[in-house]
């Protein structure tokens, strides 16, 4: 940064053009459309707004979206950590294949993921058979939602941890051994703190993505009021009832949560940068 400040501000040409175009495009595609949510909710009086966003069914949907996204992100953190570790540290048959397939959830359309999981876990489905036997229903329960969200979020964790793990200096670990620390102690005391910012970033990304996810969840959730209705579905359902103000109000709260996530993410990242220096 300091390197930049010594130079005069605009040496290279095209600031006006590129900046102007970027801001115009950003406003047309993102800012103006998003502002409609605010404008629509501004038309409501405080009481209507409050009753719209605090109706029991709406509250239940926020709670469900938060908790399922949370558990999915937690699972993603574990599975992502494991996958990243195995992919970086070990050499084994199929490693390259697994490494490429990590990105699949990102590239696969969510609707396809949705019908796949709904079919896999349906009673009598390939996996549903077992869960039926163990008397653990998956379809139409929050656990079904978590499964879909784990799939959606897991590449984020792997792909943020992987590069950090690769960059790790072997000397640090080696010196820990030479000082008599065992494997687990080294991991807990040396490796884990180092990986933590990346892990948090990845998990937050997975969480943010899961909070708004729609396509993959609706096929498996069953959409039962108070039980398995996620917040984005609540918006859809308000729209289907011609309730635009209500839909905007619910959307506004969900947006605020996502903004919160972005803020958390930014502060983790600046913390991470400090750590690295």
């Amino acid at each position: 940064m300091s390197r930049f400040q010594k130079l005069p501000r605009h040496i290279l040409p095209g600031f006006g053009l590129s900046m102007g175009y970027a801001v115009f495009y950003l406003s047309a595609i993102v800012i103006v459309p998003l502002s409609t949510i605010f404008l629509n909710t501004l038309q409501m009086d405080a009481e209507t707004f409050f009753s719209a966003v605090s109706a029991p069914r709406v509250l239940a949907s926020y709670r469900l979206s938060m908790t399922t996204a949370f558990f999915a992100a937690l699972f993603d953190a574990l599975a992502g950590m494991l996958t990243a570790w195995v992919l970086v540290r070990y050499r084994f048959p199929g490693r390259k294949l697994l490494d490429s397939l990590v990105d699949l959830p990102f590239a696969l359309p969510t609707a396809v993921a949705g019908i796949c999981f709904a079919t896999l876990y349906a009673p009598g489905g390939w996996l549903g058979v077992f869960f039926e036997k163990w008397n653990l229903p998956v379809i139409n329960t929050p656990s079904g939602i978590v499964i879909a969200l784990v799939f959606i979020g897991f590449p984020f964790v792997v792909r943020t941890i992987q590069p950090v793990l690769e960059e790790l200096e072997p000397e640090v670990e080696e010196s820990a051994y030479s000082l008599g620390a065992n494997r687990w102690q080294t991991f807990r005391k040396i490796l884990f703190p180092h990986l933590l910012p990346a892990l948090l970033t990845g998990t937050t990304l997975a969480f943010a993505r899961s909070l708004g996810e729609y396509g993959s969840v609706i096929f498996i959730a069953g959409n039962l009021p108070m039980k398995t209705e996620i917040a984005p579905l609540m918006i859809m359902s308000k729209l289907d009832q011609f309730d635009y103000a209500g839909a905007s109000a619910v959307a506004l709260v969900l947006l605020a949560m996502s903004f919160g996530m972005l803020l958390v993410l930014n502060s983790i990242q600046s913390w991470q940068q400090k750590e690295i220096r």
Partner: protein
Amino acid sequence: MKQQWTKKILMAAAILLSSGVTGHTALSAAGSTTLLNVSYDPTRELYQSENAAFARYWKKKTGQTVIINQSHGGSGKQARAVIDGLEADVVTLALAYDIDAISDSRLIAPNWQKRLPDNSTPYTSTIVFVVRKGNPKQVKTWDDLVKPGVSVITPNPKTSGGARWNYLAAWGYKQKQTGSAVRAKAFVKSLYRNVPVLDTGARGSTLTFAQRGLGDVLLAWENEAHLILREFGSDKFEIVAPSVSILAEPPVAIVDKNVDRRGTRKIAQAYLSFLYTPEAQDIIAKNSYRPRNQAALRKYAANFPKIRLFTLNEIFGSWRKAQKTHFSDGGVFDQISTP
């Protein structure tokens, strides 16, 4: 090497672009008129046949080619799409309230229901039960649905037209039987206690029941029930007709503002009137909707068991009233679904 790569990708993009641009208009071929029929979920198969029949009829009569595009979804959702600018020439929805809503936004004249015979409903239907083969839970009447351990599948009345008919059928049955709205409410409440899943549309519920194997009874349109037997095999499911149910009247209307702008009023009118002709009524009956035409009804009588049918107005006054009391925010349905 690297530059070749870039070139290849650019060329691929160019090919994609050109094929996309040129190929897009195939279903609105030159020299023909197109109509858009915006309809509710279960009528896909019906209108596929009706549209083909009408296209033949219109070609013979006028020499013009007509292509009718279809859009299907939950009835309320479809009405919203039309209000928001989906350019439907005609709407064929699950219930009058949804067309009223379109009419309220001045796209359809307020007197729409008087413009065609039989309250603008070319066919009727009713709500029946679909159970698994052998009827293991012995579900025969509405009262069996509230028994403990019976799991009932029905969609969400907030979003699905069919689900509203299901709800009102159950309510009407109890109110007619006991004469008390309070007992009807308690009945409906305990019925929805037995519902493990509320899909957003009738199709979603059918899939939940038939494909994912959930639930003991599916509350369904009569036509949908027959379709399930055809699609999934009558060796797996059977239909139980309750002795009493509701007379469901799914109406049709021209969207005045759109047909005037597109200049399709004449053909749209002809299309809706065509639905009342013996040929169309035969297709209607074949698809297990109850036709208005007596000859068609007699021909397919085996499909339509005798059920005592009450009308919506008889119990609830009008669709607007029913909607407001039961399905608006904070309405009866909201009250009974919060524990």
